[in-house]
Structure formats: C-alpha cells, structure tokens
C-alpha cells in the first residue's frame, strides 16, 4: 500500500467505511489514515462537501448540543444556500 497524493494510504478498507443515511441526507463516513495518524472523513456525495476531523475536533463535538447543529443547518444545503 503506497501513500496517495492526498497523504492517505491507498486502497479502501471496507471495514473503515460506512454509510449513515436517513430520508433527508446520506453521508459516507470513513477512517482516513495519514502517514502519521488518522482522521474521520465525512463526505456528502450529493452536495459534494467533505470534512476530515481529527480526534481533538471529534472530541469537541461531544460537548456540543443540538443547537450547534441547528445553527449549522440555518443554511440547509451548505454555505451560500
């Protein structure tokens, strides 16, 4: 397995990837291994956005409330919508 240009390890491990969906949205969630660590990628194939979160960012999500996400969703399809 060689490294890819984006710094992630080539090849997808299906165990590291899963889909979270309901009737409103679908995202693909996967572990992305960098040379020296790991991130969690959340991608929206429909909207074309994606984000890679490190453990500290993920941990900071644990003390958010629904209000945080309600604020995010003030633009329900992303920036500019």
């Amino acid at each position: 397995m060689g490294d890819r240009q984006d710094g992630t390890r080539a090849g997808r491990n299906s165990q590291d990837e899963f889909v979270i969906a309901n009737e409103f949205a679908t995202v693909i969630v996967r572990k992305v291994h960098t040379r020296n660590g790991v991130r969690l990628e959340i991608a929206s194939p429909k909207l074309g956005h994606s984000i890679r979160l490190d453990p500290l960012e993920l941990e900071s999500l644990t003390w958010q409330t629904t209000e945080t996400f309600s604020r995010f969703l003030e633009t329900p399809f992303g920036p500019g919508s």
Partner: protein
Amino acid sequence: MQVLKGRRQPSPEVRSMLEAMVDMVPQGRVPARIFNDPEVFELEQERIFGRCWVFLAHESEIPSPGDYVLRYIANNSIIVVRDEEGKVRAHLNMCRHRGNQVCKAEMGNASHFRCSYHGWTYKNTGELIGVPYWNEVYHRRLDKAEWALVPVRVETYNGLIFGNLDPDAPSLEEYLGGFQWYLDFYLKPGPNGTEVYGTPDKWVADTDWKICAENFAGDGYHTPVAHAFGFELGYFPSSARTHFEGVAVHIPGKGHAIGLGRTPGMPPFFGFPPEVVEAMQQTLTPEQVQVFSQVRTAVCTVFPNLSILLQPFSRIPGQPGVRFVTMRLWHPIGPGRIQMWSWCIVPKDAPQWYKDESYLAYTLAFGAAGMFEQDDFENWTNLTRQVKSTLARDLVFPYEMGMDLEPDPTFPGPGVAVPPYVHETNFRNMWSTWAKYMLRD
C-alpha cells in the same frame, strides 16, 4: 393557534337521525345507516376524530432521541417523534411553506427534518431553523419563529401515546375516566411495562371502523359462531357451553368498554409464564389481581377506534398455549373503508421465548392472514356492503341484549360492570357516546 374548527354541519336528515339516537339507543335500537355513509364519515372526521384522544403509537416504537414514526388522526399525517431531550412530540407532517409532506419514510431517526421541496429545515421539536437563501430571497425578514411545524397535543398512558386535535379537549386522564384500571391488565405485566414486537401489520379493508370497534368492545356473541372452528379444533381454550361467563364493563358517557370472559376451572393467570405472573402480582393492585387472574379473554375498545385483545391461544390445537396481546387501530380512510394497524405487544420483562411464542400465536390468529382475522373481515366487509343499500339505510338494528341486566355492585373496578360477558350494554353506551359527539356543534 386553532388547529381545527368544527365547520361541517349535518344535513337535516342526518341531524334528525342523530337526534333520534339519543332516545333510541338506550332503548336498544341503532340505525344501520351509521355503519356506511359518506356524510356520516365526513362528519366523524371533525366531530369524532377532531375531538377524541386518538391512539398514535407505543412509546417503544420511538425509544431513542430522534426516533419517529408516521401516524394519522382523521386525514392528517402526523410525525410522532422523541426529541433530543427525550420528550414525545407530535407535529402535523406538513411543511409550513407550501404544504409538502416533510417526512416520507414511515419510520426513521432524525434530529432535523429537511423538506424536499424548498429545503425548509425543522428541529425535531418542530421549530423552523433553516430557510435556504434566507438572506437573498427573504432579506432576513421572514420570522422563522412564526412557522414551526403545527404541534399536536400528545399525552401518554403506560406506554400508549395518544394525540388530540382539539386544544379544548379534556386531559387524557379525564377522557379515559377510570378505564385505565382495565388497560393496566394489558399494559402493566411487569415493572417495565410492555413493548411492541416488531412493526405494525397494516392493510386496507372495506369495512367501517365502527363495526370493528364495536366487535372488540365485547362481542363475545360472535365468537363461537364466526370462529367456530377455533373452538372445535382446540386453538382456543373455551367452549360454546361456558363461553358467555364473565362480565362486561363500560365507562358511562365515555364510550370505552371491555369484555372479560372467564372459563370455569381455568387456573389463575393461565397461559402466562411464571415470571410474568409474579411480576403482575406486584404491579397490579390486589383488586386487579382478583379480577384479572380469572380472565381468559380481555377484549376492549378505547373510544373511538383503538382496540386491545388479550387471549390465550395455542399454535398446536389442544395444547395450553400462551397469551398474546394485539392492539389494533381501525383508522377510517373513507366511508366503509379502513386502514388497519395491528400490533403485537409483549411484556418487556418476559423471557424471550415467551415473546417469540406470543408473537407467533398473535400472527396465527390475528395477523393480516390470521385465522380469526379472516373470519372477522369476511363478515365485516359483507356487512359494510349491505348496510349502504337503499333499503337498508332506513332500517335499525336491535341492540336489546341484556337490557334487563343489573350491574354487579360488588365488582371492584370503575365504571358499570354488568355480568355476564355477552350482552350489548357496552355497545349501547358506545353508540350513545358517539351520537353525543356527533350532535355537538
């Protein structure tokens, strides 16, 4: 916000039929016409289903924050959801912008709902929080607080979630009016109550909801006839000879009714596993234990259209079998037409083998293709077709059975308890209550 105003007025003809029912029903007569009539159906949508507490869901169908199911009250699609704080809420399933259906899946989990038309996005509390291009198209002037999903009143009793479209309706507690005492037999089989076994079975049938609701309000009369083979083959631990023993109870003026059938010599709490019997002796009062331990069949209707049946049933004829509980909602979708919702509920604390066995017994007897279900719907659909004929619409049916019976003054439960199990006292109260709702402007 006024959700529903009773706008529809009955025609002079229907009004006079309803007014006649006030005296006629207690004297044992019910007009055939009420069981399949377009005008009666339309009036019921507002005057019955717009005012009564209507069953929506069992709490175990939405156990976690964000879990939701779609249900109906009259012709209104309702989202029943557990919000992020764990509170059960109900909203009209309609986007406030142009009326699109917000949730389309019958069940799911979401913290926010996003409409597929213009993208208006609501928290699962109903609050509108996202409006696409709010700056560009509304210049930030649209007040989001004004456009939440329309809330529907909800209240629960021991796991059952009911909704009411009438902001002025009495509380669920007052509405049930003591019938809780009987519901406990179904709903308190242990400290953690009940849970649904799987998702509800649903199908459409050409029958009127009232026929079904009446049948479950204690029509033990049809059982040895319509379901004769169930007796004869030994699926059902009763015999035509002793089938009428027991008591029928109704809550006057409320419409709720239960039939409690007994089989002489049946061991107490027959068909329940020992764990559940032990638990019931703790969760039920001594008076409830005294009454319910003797009961073979407990079949009830919570007015208007929720019915529950608890029954021992054997998958192998002649064997003791197990108890099953089915809860059914006779949801009217047109004159003489219902969408049938049928759940199996089981004691949450019962061993898994008993839950599985109970579900199999329910499915064999009362699932969509269940043997008892087939017997009933064959009769009910034929009856519904008959009563809309031009000759039948002016006829009345006799509801005289048990007119001279006296209540049992020693019976420990609320309401009016009239022995034995089989008579029409419960139905007379039910149709008097129905007429009272239908006459109220």
